């Protein structure tokens, strides 16, 4: 982490409970959970260039897997949450296979279909999922008392730090660079020995795993899940968080997800106005800061180096 803004963010995250009241911390915790899913979506969409408009579906799969494992089979949460991530990753891998042939709007609509299917499925299979009524998963407990907001907050911060570290490692690994190559010029990547099929499948699985883990965390932090938590709206929310924060950037995904969640909760009393402000903000960010909030020139306060803007269309032409 060479970027001083990243350090300030991390420091701020640790010191925040001193100044933010209980409910505010709870909202921030939710934002951080969304951030985990956004980091995952960012690996797939920002890094590997595969759009997903149904990522909340993976969150739903993770949430219900962990909730059902712990409720029905008395799995400890330390086991059910990782299993939820694995389960979501397996589904992601399975979705990745038909998605290999699709790109652009076709992939967007197919993943949107997947997300809609998951929430319909959760709604209809009432005997297992409780339908509209949802489920009440166990709260995260490590003592006999119900955890305080600040405890949940630090717990989530710790997990998110681990997930961000992993994502940053992946970004710089052979796999991460292969993803960028496949995103920018698939056949050039193929010509230089990268297997696009394996790269895309890995991106799908990893990204779905992140979302599944986030869903499981949400289930046990909130203590209630229902199919409407993982609807098309949630998928769109995630995608906008990634784009507004800044594509192909781990801190960008975190900033986008936290900012959107906090704004969303703060304006929950005035729904129509919230829609207008939200939509307006999305449009303005795309119009004036196509690189996302994270790539605002604020970075220049610390460094004079120009900020690279990733995810422009590749300028390279011709074979």
């Amino acid at each position, binding site marked *: 982490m060479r970027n001083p803004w990243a350090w300030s963010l991390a420091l701020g995250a640790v010191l925040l409970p001193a100044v933010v009241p209980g409910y505010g911390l709870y909202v921030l915790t939710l934002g951080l959970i969304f951030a985990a899913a956004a980091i995952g979506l960012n690996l797939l969409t920002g890094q590997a260039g595969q759009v997903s408009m149904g990522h909340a579906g993976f969150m739903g799969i993770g949430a219900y897997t962990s909730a059902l494992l712990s409720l029905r089979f008395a799995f400890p949460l330390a086991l059910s949450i990782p299993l939820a991530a694995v389960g979501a990753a397996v589904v992601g891998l399975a979705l990745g296979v038909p998605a290999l042939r699709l790109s652009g709007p076709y992939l967007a609509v197919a993943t949107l279909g997947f997300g809609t299917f998951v929430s319909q499925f959760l709604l209809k299979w009432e005997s297992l999922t409780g339908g509209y009524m949802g489920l009440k998963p166990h709260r995260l407990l490590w003592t006999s008392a119900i955890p305080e907001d600040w405890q949940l907050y630090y717990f989530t911060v710790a997990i998110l730090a681990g997930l961000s570290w992993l994502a940053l490692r992946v970004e710089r690994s052979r796999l991460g660079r292969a993803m960028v190559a496949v995103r920018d010029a698939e056949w050039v990547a193929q010509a230089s020995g990268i297997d696009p099929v394996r790269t895309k499948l890995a991106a799908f699985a990893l990204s779905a795993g992140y979302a599944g883990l986030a869903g499981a965390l949400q289930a046990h932090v909130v203590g209630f899940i229902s199919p409407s938590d993982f609807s098309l709206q949630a998928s769109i929310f995630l995608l906008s968080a990634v784009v507004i924060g800044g594509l192909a950037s781990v801190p960008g995904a975190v900033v986008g997800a936290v900012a959107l969640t906090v704004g969303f909760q703060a304006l929950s009393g005035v729904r129509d106005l919230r829609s*207008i402000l939200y939509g307006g903000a999305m449009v303005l960010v*795309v119009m004036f800061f196509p690189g996302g909030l994270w790539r605002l020139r604020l970075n220049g306060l610390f460094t004079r180096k120009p900020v690279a803007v990733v995810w422009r269309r590749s300028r390279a032409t011709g074979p």
Partner: protein
Amino acid sequence: MDGRLLADVLVGGVAAGAVYALMALGLVLIYKTTEIVNFGHGDMATVCTFVAYAVAVQMGAPLAVAVVLSLVCAALLGALVEWGIFRVARTRHATVLSLVVATLGVALVLNGAVGVVWGHDVKTFPFLWTGPPVRVGAALLPVDQVLNLAVGVLLAAALYGFFRYTVPGIAMRATISNQAAAHLVGIPVDRMFALSWAIGSALGALAGILAAPVLYLEPNRMVDLLLKGFAAAVLGGMDSLPGAPVGGVVLGVLENLAGAYGSLELKASLAFLLIVIALALRPQGLMGTYRHRRV
């Protein structure tokens, strides 16, 4: 099942498909010219349907006037979105994905605006044409579905004529097939973009007005129609204008068959099941062309 019911189901499916086709045509037109998948299409249609509602029901003007005003509004709105937002974003090298996210933003703004102006209670929208059911071949069709069918066929013919015989239509096709070359021969590419947004948006508004009497009016009522429009567009081929009505009709008929012989619940999720199967077999849609990736 007897043949009469089957005929009813089939013709009814085609009529329902006509509305999906209108929605899909607008989406495909905008996608073909500007490469933007417009997720704001449903909410743009909602706004314009509410305009028609305001003129016809709240102000008591004749329905025909309301429809015309609404379509004009739709065209202006489409052009405004393209000129005010996407043209600016393009000059700043926004990626196609972020443009698509901007359409989601447009959708949210319009959705909120409709809620502020007209509130959230469900409203009834008058049928454009009322009367006894009409016999179409072996099937008996409600008169509003006959209208859907007629409007769908007429518009398909009108669009064909527009693209085949008129100067702006041909210019738009030139823009679609090669922007740089179109620009070189003096076609105002920017204006073609705005024109395609205007026409696409008007087609969406028309679909909204035709569907509103059955669906009723409420800020979020068009989401389903938008998804069906997408399903139809992708099924037919996102880059194929003739594909859109084909996709719409196939979707409408299959949906009606599933509703009649399967279950109504199946009807809702069938659209997406169908898309996934169709895309697995033909990733470019039924009538789309396989596009080699531009490098």
